[in-house]
């Protein structure tokens, strides 16, 4: 370790890892546009938050861009038909998720016409009210295209409400193998800059900082040229390092501000969007087009012809791979299928899984790339501690999670873990550290749900007790009332009888 490195180490500026990026040659090939497949599979939940609710019937004819499922709840996004055709079914399909579980989806059969619904764009977005832009972006179903798929409208309106000053555009694309953002920045820099300006208007932020990793010189040059005349859009190259594209890390590198552990980017006046999202926002505002397609990187040693492909949302990964030239040796050497990036993406059980709005890559790895290895005992080298971008102690946390001491793991900062996978990547013993953390987070969420459920049960049991008591009381009261009425009636009758008797007596007397 050289002197400067040592210095950096003590400054704590040594987080992250430097994997081989494997971005080329896929990044250098132009984007290919894939034709519309015969059938599209559109999961109702392609975003974070509540699932969308279908608003079409089976057999109904829809046009391209027509709303087929509406947003449900505060954090949600609608889904639009990616092409014209007939709704074939609303059913369960395999989700792009490592569990291999199913989720509800609309299946759309293409009629081959690809006919747009009537679109209403807007020529001067800057005349629009910021709230109106947020509304239109939400209606267009735009979500973050970086991977997490958080509904963009929620972020935009939230930002204008909480006085955000800086808009950060995430062009980091720090995940190895992926190059869809890189490609879009090279090809449509002007569109992205226009989208950024619309987002600046919508959020009320003063300045937009576009962070691009310095391993993408072409994208930096293209974006610089496009942003040359725009005063409040700055292109800022950042050092290539994983996870530079993580929100908290990018904010810190670009602004020097740190997002508090229990806070959000809003709290320090910053909002982060992906560069791809800027294009989707632009299309939604200028042309009124909903988000129905995206650029996906097909890569990995098993892919015959790696590259970026523009596909309709809902296309099966199988068909995308076939269009991209198929797999080497018909997938003989295939060791792992991944959707998204290799570090944080989802391992999927088979290729019959649709591309959703948040899918950035389809990766086919061979055994050499996966490099699966039996884990060995921890040698306490501290590599994971050095690599952790959040400054946590992965080895200590995983030891506690292994013994199910979740509370202690939380005490060590489990909730700050961003599951980037740096720790597992650098571990010389190949301990699946990040899997421990993801497991623990799921387990804690289950516990929280169980606790809520327990409280609700208690409340219900108490309410039932109250109800039974009340019913009993009412029964007793009603019986008492009836008894009183009966007695009163009897008394009245007796009184009447005596009265009648006396009258009779009077009469006879």
């Amino acid at each position, binding site marked *: 370790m050289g002197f400067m490195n040592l210095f950096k180490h003590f400054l704590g500026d040594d987080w992250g890892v430097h994997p081989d990026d494997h971005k080329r040659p896929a990044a250098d090939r132009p984007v290919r546009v894939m034709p519309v497949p015969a059938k599209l599979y559109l999961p109702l939940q392609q975003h974070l938050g509540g699932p969308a609710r279908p608003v079409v019937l089976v057999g109904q004819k829809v046009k391209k861009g027509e709303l087929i499922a509406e947003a449900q709840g505060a954090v949600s996004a609608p889904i639009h038909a990616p092409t014209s055709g007939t709704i074939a079914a609303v059913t369960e399909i395999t989700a792009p998720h490592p569990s291999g579980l199913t989720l509800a989806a609309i299946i759309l059969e293409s009629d081959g016409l690809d006919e747009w619904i009537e679109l209403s764009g807007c020529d001067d977005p800057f005349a629009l009210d910021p709230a109106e832009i947020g509304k239109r972006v939400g209606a267009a179903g735009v979500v973050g295209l970086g991977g997490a798929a958080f509904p963009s409208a929620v972020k935009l309106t939230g930002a204008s409400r909480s006085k955000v000053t800086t808009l950060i555009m995430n062009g980091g694309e720090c995940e190895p193998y992926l190059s869809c953002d890189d490609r879009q920045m090279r090809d449509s820099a002007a569109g992205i800059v226009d989208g950024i300006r619309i987002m600046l208007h919508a959020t009320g932020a003063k300045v937009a900082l576009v962070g691009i990793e310095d391993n993408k010189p072409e994208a930096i040059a293209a974006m610089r040229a496009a942003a040359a005349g725009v005063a409040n859009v700055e292109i800022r190259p950042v050092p290539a390092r994983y996870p530079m594209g993580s929100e908290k890390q990018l904010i810190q590198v670009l602004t020097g501000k740190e997002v508090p552990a229990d806070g959000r980017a809003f709290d320090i006046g910053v909002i982060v969007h992906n560069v791809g999202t800027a294009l989707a926002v632009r299309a939604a505002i200028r042309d009124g087009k909903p988000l129905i397609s995206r650029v996906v990187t097909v890569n990995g040693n098993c892919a015959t012809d790696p590259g970026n492909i523009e596909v309709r949302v809902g296309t099966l990964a199988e068909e995308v791979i076939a269009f991209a030239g198929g797999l080497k040796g018909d997938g003989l050497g295939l060791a792992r299928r991944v959707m998204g990036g290799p570090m944080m993406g989802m391992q999927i059980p088979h290729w019959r899984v649709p591309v959703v709005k948040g899918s950035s890559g389809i990766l086919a790895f061979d055994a050499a790339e996966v490099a699966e290895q039996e884990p060995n005992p921890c040698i306490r080298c501290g590599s994971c501690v050095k690599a952790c971008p959040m400054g946590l102690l992965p080895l200590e946390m995983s030891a*506690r999670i292994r013994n199910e001491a979740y509370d202690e793991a939380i005490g060590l900062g489990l909730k700050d873990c961003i599951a980037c996978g740096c720790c597992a990547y650098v571990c010389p013993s190949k301990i699946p550290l990040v899997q421990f953390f993801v497991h623990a987070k799921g387990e804690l969420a289950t516990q929280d749900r169980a606790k809520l459920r327990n409280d609700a049960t208690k409340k219900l049991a108490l309410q039932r007790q109250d109800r039974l008591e009340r019913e009993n009381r009412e029964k007793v009261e009603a019986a008492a009332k009836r008894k009183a009425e009966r007695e009163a009636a009897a008394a009245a009758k007796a009184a009447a009888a005596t009265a009648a008797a006396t009258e009779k007596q009077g009469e006879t007397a």
Partner: protein
Amino acid sequence: MSEILLLLLSTALVNNVVLIKFLGLCPVMGVSKSVDSALGMGLATTFVLMLASAASWMLDNWLLQPLGLGYLRILTFILVIASVVQFTEMFVKKTSPGLYQSLGIYLPLITTNCAVLGVALLNVQQQFSLFKSLLYGFGSALGFTLVLLIFAGLRERVALARVPAAFAGAPVAFITISLLALAFMGFSGLNV
């Protein structure tokens, strides 16, 4: 003043009740799974030891020795210690039911903790004054609590480690405490 300090140091570290004299091993193995209950146990034992030291000194000097009943010493001391433990048990149950539950059987077992009886008997043997007896009791309790805390901390760490199946549980705990005893032997070089 220096005598007080020396007495404390020598009882707590150099002649540690647990690791040098091997007294009171039962709670050290039994209540050392978590630092919290170890601290509770240490405090309870400290309380009992102090009270027992004082009471046994008084009994010995004012009752047993004047009447020449030295042969009843163990009997009376056990009686006093048992009462003090009973009182402590009531007190803990009242003030901290959680601690009471987690100490479990080890709380009444302080009665038969040989550290307590041992300290009381050693006090008599060494002909200490009341103040020195108290100090001796306090020093011993300090040493006991110290070892209990260190050992509980170690066991908490050992619980996280991957121990070979044959050594899991009590065996590795015995190995750990033997190493700790070796470390405490180093204090004998203090020459106090």
